């Protein structure tokens, strides 16, 4: 964790290593997978154990589970409309997985699985396939009207259609890059300032006093990262809702 050899090593925290000993090594079960299972277990625990009481006046855990449920339920019905309710389980799963993954990554020694483009792109690809399948099954051939706005002059089609197709294909890319870049940037900054603390503290008599400054920045950064962790999960979910709205209504 410390700065070995006077160098800032901010990227090794994203390195994958196998976990669970020899069993994990033989099937390439990485710590990323381990934290995904942690996240799933936490969500499952919150939803089953937290809701166990089923009290009219909810306790702490029940209230957390209920507010998460209602938050996403309102988001889906607001953004997609009444017919969007069937996508609620999907959006809720996605949101909770990303949120818990981001939050888990903020714990010391924990691994942030959302800081890998492979993971975020995997999630975004699921969204992309879903919106395409939904639009296709609801509208059939009219789906292609999506790539050519009504009322545009026909001779512009060779320009508009490829641009619209590229724009449509860029959705999963931008969705995944946004989440991935935010998580990587935050964790790199935390690591860099944490390394400053260690480096400055070893600077003789005045060192520890100067080291307070990056430490203070890091305290603020952790708070900021909690915000970013929530915000990015929210953005991921709401963009999924917006894309689903486009797929259902198709303008």
């Amino acid at each position, binding site marked *: 964790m410390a700065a070995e050899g006077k160098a800032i090593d901010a990227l090794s925290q994203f390195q994958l290593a196998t976990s669970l000993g020899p069993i994990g090594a033989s099937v390439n079960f990485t710590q990323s997978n381990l934290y995904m299972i942690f996240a799933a277990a936490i969500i499952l625990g919150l939803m089953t154990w937290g809701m166990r009481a089923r009290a009219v006046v909810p306790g702490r855990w029940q209230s957390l589970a209920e507010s998460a449920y209602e938050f996403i339920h309102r988001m889906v019905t607001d953004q997609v*409309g009444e017919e969007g309710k069937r996508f609620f389980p999907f959006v809720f799963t996605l949101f909770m997985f990303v949120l818990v993954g981001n939050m888990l990554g903020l714990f010391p020694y924990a691994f942030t699985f959302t800081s890998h483009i492979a993971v975020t792109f995997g999630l975004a690809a699921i969204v992309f396939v879903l919106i395409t399948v939904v639009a296709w099954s609801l509208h059939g051939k009219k789906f292609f009207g999506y790539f050519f706005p009504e009322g545009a002059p026909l001779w512009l089609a060779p*320009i508009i259609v490829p*641009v619209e197709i*590229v*724009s449509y294909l*860029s959705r999963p890319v931008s969705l995944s*890059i946004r989440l991935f870049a935010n998580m990587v940037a935050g964790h790199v900054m935390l690591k860099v300032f944490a390394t400053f603390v260690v480096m400055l503290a070893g600077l003789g008599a005045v060192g520890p006093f100067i080291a307070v400054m990056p430490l203070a920045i890091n305290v603020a950064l952790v708070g900021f990262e909690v915000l970013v962790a929530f*915000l990015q999960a929210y*953005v991921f979910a709401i963009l999924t*809702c917006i894309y689903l709205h486009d797929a259902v209504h198709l303008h």
Partner: protein
Amino acid sequence: MVQPDGFDKRLRDARAKHGLDKGEGDAKLPGGAWGVGFRAGVEVFSALVVGVVLGLLLDRWLGTWPWLFLLMFVMGSAAGILNVYRLFNPRRVKRD
């Protein structure tokens, strides 16, 4: 009480213009100036990536290097600008 001269509508428009009322249908994404800037950058970048990759793949398939690559690079830039435009002017004006 509805004013005859469309006062309510003008008031609503003026309030919406100055951001006092949240627009009905537009999904207001959070984030300050940095957030918006970052989103715009990501939109341009991802459209460019898609355009370039698509161009390279088509070139490899059809053996037309570098022409489709150049064409799709331009298309990708255009799509990036379109994405940023949509970011600030959501396409869905009416709901449902």
